[in-house]
């Protein structure tokens, strides 16, 4: 039975909502904060910034990461930059414009209230990071430099060479390390969360596994915050790190947290193409490259395998510049990815596989000189050369779209609380701010906004009612039960004794997802995918093999648990994609497109967030709808022409 969800967006003018919220939210006094425990799961941009900020405020924080160090979180791999409405360039930027660009970039499927708040706090993030010692790029006058990114007509992206994510994460990691040394945050490296514990309808703790010893531990808290990233690895091949997984979010979902818009997946247009079956992951080439690189394919199929430098100008199709003259190579990601797919589907894709397009820097090198191009993108060019064995200063890069980011995630309200009271989700783990497509340089912005400037305010609203609760015991039936379920599942996995590796199941799941729930989807394929995934799940639990033991360092066992969760999530993603009979952003249903092949939304029937409720093993999930209300922005068909 579906019910309408309340997002708790504050009333009032869009410019006043957040200010007014902050002015009225209940506070927790300093002496009470000491008596309140908060668990943060994950140590990426969202997790590290949240843990540090809450520690500074005086809460007792425990921060868990499955990595050997918080600094390894996958935020570190973000390359291009972070957006902020500073308007340092005097080029017409403003909070409103960042807000508008983000809503439009998300194809009118994000909440106005959240996105405006994000744009408002964006400027403080840059200030905070600079104060921490983040070495952003600077101009000769010593002031901060900016560049432009897809889907915008201003330069609002701050960057640190091609390692912006690394530098921002190191900043947050340092802030976190400081709190660890001050004793406000206790850090648990190499611990993976395997379940949440719900007591009287509230999230009261988590069950974790010590990845070195296999010990199962109970940890209680007055609130739990999941900052556990996205689920792009459901596709097996993606730009995500190898260990990125959905387990924390999926386990919370099975305990009652709704999953929002699971089918919204971002396929990034500029990745190094797949080269063989052995491939374990895909490597992104930053979107910033499209500032200077030009995308093209040969006009004639017979030129596909020719040396691209021998193909004359008149025989090249700079398809983005031709189709979208206003934005050219800087159209948003979903549009650039689909345009590359269209070119390859027409038989014009280059390279051995035919699944690649050129990203050409010859013009930029001629115009600015090799040194300038090297200064801006040197590390990316080096990485490309190492992986492909080709020199991109001489030969155009070959690129193809790949899974990169998931806009979907745990459903949260304006306060970033999931549908389970006391359980929060921040960063990529939540669904909140990017609608059906995320603009470049906005993931770093959202992760840090949530952790530094949103959650520290909103969590007080809930915790102010917890000041009399006292310490939460872990020797209760709820903890007993949750721990038992975790132990049972681990034992089940280690005793499967089948004949196929976990890796092989993951690869098969990925192929189903990429073929049928990837860049283009249709009802027929999605229905097949759901059946195939159900069968895969049954086969996994009958015939997978997990080596080693449960009480030891065992990466294969970790992988097995994660893949089992991915399989269940994959089915939900296909269900969501099947139910959404429209195209929007990264969700492209072949049945719903305009004459020009652009995504065709159905605002009358689908202007809502789809939030799915787990109803138990084998049961159909229930769909809840949160209507999206646009008070400020006029909803139009998205155009970048």
């Amino acid at each position, binding site marked *: 039975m579906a019910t309408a969800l309340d997002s708790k967006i504050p009333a009032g003018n869009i410019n006043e909502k957040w200010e007014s919220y902050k002015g009225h939210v209940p506070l927790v006094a300093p002496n009470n904060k000491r008596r309140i425990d908060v668990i943060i799961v994950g140590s990426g941009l969202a997790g590290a910034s949240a843990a540090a900020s809450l520690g500074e405020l005086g809460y007792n924080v425990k921060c868990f990461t499955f990595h050997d160090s918080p600094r390894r979180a996958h935020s570190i791999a973000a390359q291009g930059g972070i957006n902020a409405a500073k308007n340092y360039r005097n080029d017409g930027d403003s909070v409103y414009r960042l807000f508008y660009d983000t809503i439009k970039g998300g194809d009118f499927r994000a909440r106005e209230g959240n996105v405006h708040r994000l744009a408002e706090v964006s400027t*403080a993030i840059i200030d905070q990071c600079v104060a921490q*010692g983040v070495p952003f790029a*600077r101009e000769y*006058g010593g002031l901060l430099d900016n560049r432009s990114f897809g889907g915008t007509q201003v330069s609002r992206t701050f960057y640190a*060479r091609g390692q912006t994510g690394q530098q921002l994460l190191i900043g947050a990691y340092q802030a976190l390390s400081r709190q660890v040394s001050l004793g406000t945050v206790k850090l648990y490296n190499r611990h993976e969360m395997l379940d949440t514990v719900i007591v009287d309808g509230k999230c009261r703790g988590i069950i974790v596994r010590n990845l070195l010893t296999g010990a199962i531990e109970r940890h209680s808290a007055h609130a739990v915050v999941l900052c556990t990233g996205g689920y792009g690895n459901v596709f097996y091949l993606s730009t995500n790190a190898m260990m990125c997984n959905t387990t924390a979010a999926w386990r919370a979902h099975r305990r009652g947290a709704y999953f929002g818009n699971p089918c919204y997946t971002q396929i990034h247009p500029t990745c190094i193409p797949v080269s063989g079956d052995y491939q374990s992951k895909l490597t992104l080439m930053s979107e910033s490259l499209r500032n200077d690189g030009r995308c093209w394919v040969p006009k004639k199929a017979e030129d596909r395998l020719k040396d691209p430098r021998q193909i004359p100008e008149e025989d090249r199709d700079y398809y983005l510049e031709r189709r979208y003259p206003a934005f050219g190579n800087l159209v948003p990601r979903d549009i650039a990815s689909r345009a590359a797919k269209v070119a390859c589907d027409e038989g014009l894709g280059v390279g051995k596989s035919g699944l690649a397009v050129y990203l050409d820097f010859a013009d930029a090198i001629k115009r600015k000189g090799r040194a300038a191009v090297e200064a801006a993108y040197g590390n990316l060019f080096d990485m490309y050369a190492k992986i492909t064995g080709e020199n991109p200063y001489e030969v155009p890069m070959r690129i193809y779209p790949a899974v990169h980011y998931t806009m979907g995630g745990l459903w949260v309200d304006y306060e970033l609380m999931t549908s389970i009271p006391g359980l929060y989700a921040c960063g990529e783990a939540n669904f909140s701010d990017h609608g059906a497509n995320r603009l470049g340089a906005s993931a770093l912005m959202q992760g840090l906004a949530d952790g530094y400037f949103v959650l520290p305010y909103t969590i007080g609203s809930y915790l102010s009612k917890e000041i009399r609760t006292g310490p939460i015991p872990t020797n209760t039936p709820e903890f007993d039960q949750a721990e038992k379920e975790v132990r049972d599942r681990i034992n089940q996995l280690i005793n499967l004794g089948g004949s196929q590796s976990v890796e092989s199941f993951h690869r098969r799941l990925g192929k189903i997802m990429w073929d049928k729930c990837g860049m283009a989807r249709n009802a027929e394929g999605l229905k097949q995918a759901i059946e195939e995934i159900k069968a895969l799940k049954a086969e996994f639990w009958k015939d997978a093999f997990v*080596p080693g033991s449960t009480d030891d360092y065992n990466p294969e066992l970790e992988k097995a648990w994660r893949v089992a969760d991915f399989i269940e999530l994959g089915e939900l993603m296909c269900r969501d994609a099947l139910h959404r009979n429209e195209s929007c952003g990264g969700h492209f249903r072949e049945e719903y497109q305009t004459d020009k092949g652009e995504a065709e939304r159905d605002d009358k029937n689908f202007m809502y967030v789809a939030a799915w409720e787990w109803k138990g093993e084998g049961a159909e999930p229930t769909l809840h709808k949160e209507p999206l209300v646009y008070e400020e922005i006029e909803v139009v068909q998205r155009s970048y022409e």
Partner: protein
Amino acid sequence: MKLNLKIWRQGGKYKGEFVTYPNLDVNPDMSFLEMLDVLNEQLVSQREEPVAFEHDCREGICGTCSLVIDGQAHGPMKGTTTCQVHMRHYHEGETIVIEPFRAQSFPVIKDLVVDRSAFDRIIQSGGYVSVNTGQAQDANSIPIEKEQASKSFDAAACIGCGACVAACPNSSAMLFTSAKVSHLALLPQGHVERQKRVLAMVAQMDKEGFGKCSNVTACEAECPKEISVENIARMNREYLGAVFVSDKKMG
């Protein structure tokens, strides 16, 4: 092509010994870690325990992967992490020797996996700027000379992988520690605490049991991010300055 791997195995049924895996079928376009994936898939299919090794982003930025390959941390290529080494640089029939990063302060956990948490503790001892969330002034209020910012960045590029320690005959952590000291000392934001920071971080480094620096500079040669030993010289200056000028006690 066919390659032979000689891999250090430790834990479970292995006491700490090299095990040879002959004739592995390898595609030249594979990355080094993808080759280990292939080996592990084979071991799993034979009901053997796979070789434990750490890895995550496979883009050369997270610092999780390690390995000493034929005696060199992160293998033969300059400025490259293990995950970015590709098999096209090897030849048919070669034998590759793979070991963990060895250092007293990096105890082996299993096979090729070591515990590098000492690095976290060095950062916790002072590798930060003490600024709470919300205390910052406008980002452009302090201009920083481009060259200076760029030098700071060069030091901040450290990925904390520990190759410097593995490469050093003394297992010294000077390059790692000095990279953080330099990163922050070169920026005005890091100036206020620079003396306290360098004293605390050096004390923690010593407490973790890392060795002394004897200017071998193998750390710079094998650093996948090509962090310069200039940083060690800078840290020494910072340290001496702090000792003589500061009234703060060491440690």
